[in-house]
């Protein structure tokens, strides 16, 4: 490794972000509790990235918001612990979290980052606000130098600083937002669908930038959220699949894509579209139905209603996350070997559309 930061990172294996049994809920207008994140545990080591997959409404974005420890109604903290680089931030005052955690310890790129810039302000004024919120003594000159040097390192022209957001293209806005998010060198970066509104070329630039951030030591670890599995496979080291607020599968990226264990993860992998030979001969398989309403989640397995391999006991027993060898885990009552047998017996449907 030519980069000294990265070398130190690989040697030490320090968990940058550790979350233990985190549960958060939304309280609706009618005082109903919706547990959007339900006993989620995760660990991201320094120099590693974690991907979170799942369809819409599975709690991916709520998990991202919860990880920052900054809750505002209707989102409420229920239980669990968040430890960033050895420091427990659970139960901290929201104002302290905003001043000392957000931006410096953990940074967040929201889903519609393109709209996150203030249209009436130049980019540099926006950066001044961000930096001065953490360090009021910094002068404008210092901030400009800091911004220019970090923009240049990230491959963005310094002229962007003097522009209004309307003068930038979509991809450029997205990259500007990322550059602003990491300007204080946070330890963990949470990227929530940073490329879903962009075309493929801008998407590649954004991904390249995120990878370079890791390499050059701007950020120590990353959590990447998307529903595009090919992208996740290429960007992250580990993939976690979420369903109805719970983690249903956790595995290394290659294992999760090519050898998924949970039936839901298996179903998700059936929706992959890539321009490679052989795609046209496979039929996309969609999972029928919709995720359950989390106001009154089913008592047993939450995926039972949509699962092909459902058994009567699935609907009554609560299923725990089952750890298997190879550092993997999945949430299903069928043991690993039997699951593999089922999958291998299943005739692979190679029928094509009648063209």
């Amino acid at each position, binding site marked *: 490794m030519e980069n000294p930061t990265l070398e130190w990172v690989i040697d030490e294996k320090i968990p940058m972000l550790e979350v233990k049994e985190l549960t958060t809920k939304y309280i609706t207008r009618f005082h109903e509790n919706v547990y959007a994140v339900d006993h989620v545990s995760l660990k991201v080591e320094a120099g590693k990235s974690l991907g979170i997959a799942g*369809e*819409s409404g599975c709690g991916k974005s709520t998990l991202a918001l919860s990880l920052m420890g900054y809750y505002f109604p209707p989102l409420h903290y229920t239980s669990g612990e968040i430890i960033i680089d050895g420091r427990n931030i659970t139960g901290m005052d929201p104002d302290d979290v905003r001043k000392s955690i957000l931006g410096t310890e953990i940074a967040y790129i929201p889903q519609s980052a393109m709209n996150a810039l203030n249209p009436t302000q130049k980019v540099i004024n926006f950066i001044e606000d961000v930096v001065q919120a953490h360090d009021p003594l910094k002068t404008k000159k210092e901030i400009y130098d800091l911004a220019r040097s970090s923009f240049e390192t990230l491959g963005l022209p310094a002229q962007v600083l003097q522009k209004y957001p309307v003068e930038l293209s*979509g991809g450029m806005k997205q990259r500007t937002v990322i550059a602003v998010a990491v300007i204080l060198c946070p330890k963990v970066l949470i990227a929530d669908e940073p490329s879903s509104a962009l*075309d*493929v*070329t*801008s*998407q*590649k*630039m954004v*991904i*390249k930038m995120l*990878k370079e951030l890791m390499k050059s030591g701007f950020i120590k670890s990353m959590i990447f959220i998307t*529903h*595009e*599995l*090919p*992208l996740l*496979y*290429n960007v992250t080291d580990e993939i976690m699949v979420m369903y109805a607020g719970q983690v249903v599968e956790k595995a290394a990226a290659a294992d999760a*894509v*090519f050898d998924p264990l949970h039936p839901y993860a298996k*179903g*998700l992998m*059936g*929706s*992959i*579209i*890539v*321009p*490679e*030979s052989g*795609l*046209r001969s496979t039929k*996309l*398989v*969609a*999972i*029928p139905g919709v995720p359950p309403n989390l106001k009154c989640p089913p008592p047993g397995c939450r995926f039972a209603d949509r699962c092909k391999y459902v058994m009567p006991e699935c609907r009554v027993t609560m299923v725990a996350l089952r750890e298997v060898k190879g550092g993997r885990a999945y949430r299903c009552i069928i043991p690993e070997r039997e699951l593999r047998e089922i999958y291998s017996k299943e005739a692979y449907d190679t029928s094509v*559309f*009648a*063209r």
Partner: protein
Amino acid sequence: MLSEANVCLATRGLTKVFGAGRLKCVAVDHVDMDLCEGGVVSIVGESGSGKTTLAKMLLGLINPTEGEIYFQGKKRDISTQKKKQEYWKGIQAIFQDPYCSYNIFRKIDAVLLDCIHMRGGRKLPRARKTEMMEEACSFVNLKFEELTNKYPFELSGGQMQRLMIARVFLLKPKILVADEPTSMIDACSRATILDMLMQLRNEIGMTVIFITHDIGLAYYVSDVVYIMEHGKFVENGCADDVILHPKAPYTRRLISDVPKIHEVWDLSTV
């Protein structure tokens, strides 16, 4: 007049210019294309390459600056509102953003009823109309009874896009222009929508013009692919040829920009 019998839509030298003088921008530049009946044709390009402008001209939503469009062998005439409505019986669209595609003041059954009326079913008995609407909704896996008294914004994005397909099912157009129908929908519902679209195509035998920036998607659905760069077609042909053996450098770049799972995704070429 065009000679080939099975060409249902053709363009000759189609051009659209926005602005003038220093601000002049040629969005679509002398485009010639022939669409054969019953095929799925994809138009692929990055943002700003003129895909949507071309689609809008084909739909008659904006007027071309230059060039001709031939619909079913004859030169298209949409000079009056009445002729336009006649033309729209043959060509319909699904747009990118399902949230903006509906009139928010109209309930869902009114949306579907409009389609029946457009096909000349105004005088049908009420029970028959309901039956047709139920059939259309069940085709896209929606329950008509649950929708009748709802407004479009009460549905999810995927449901709205499926309702759009139900509209097309009722209208039975000759040509469907699908302008990025799945770009705002998550990967799991995307498979459902694509499958429905293809099933519908087989059922009513329409031609689909599929506009997308995702070359993988284009490869999956289409027979013929047109690659568009700065308002011009740089490459066209059978999907297998264009995507597995691309010739134009622009096509190669587009393909290299898409993340892959069996091949290495080279990030250094941006």
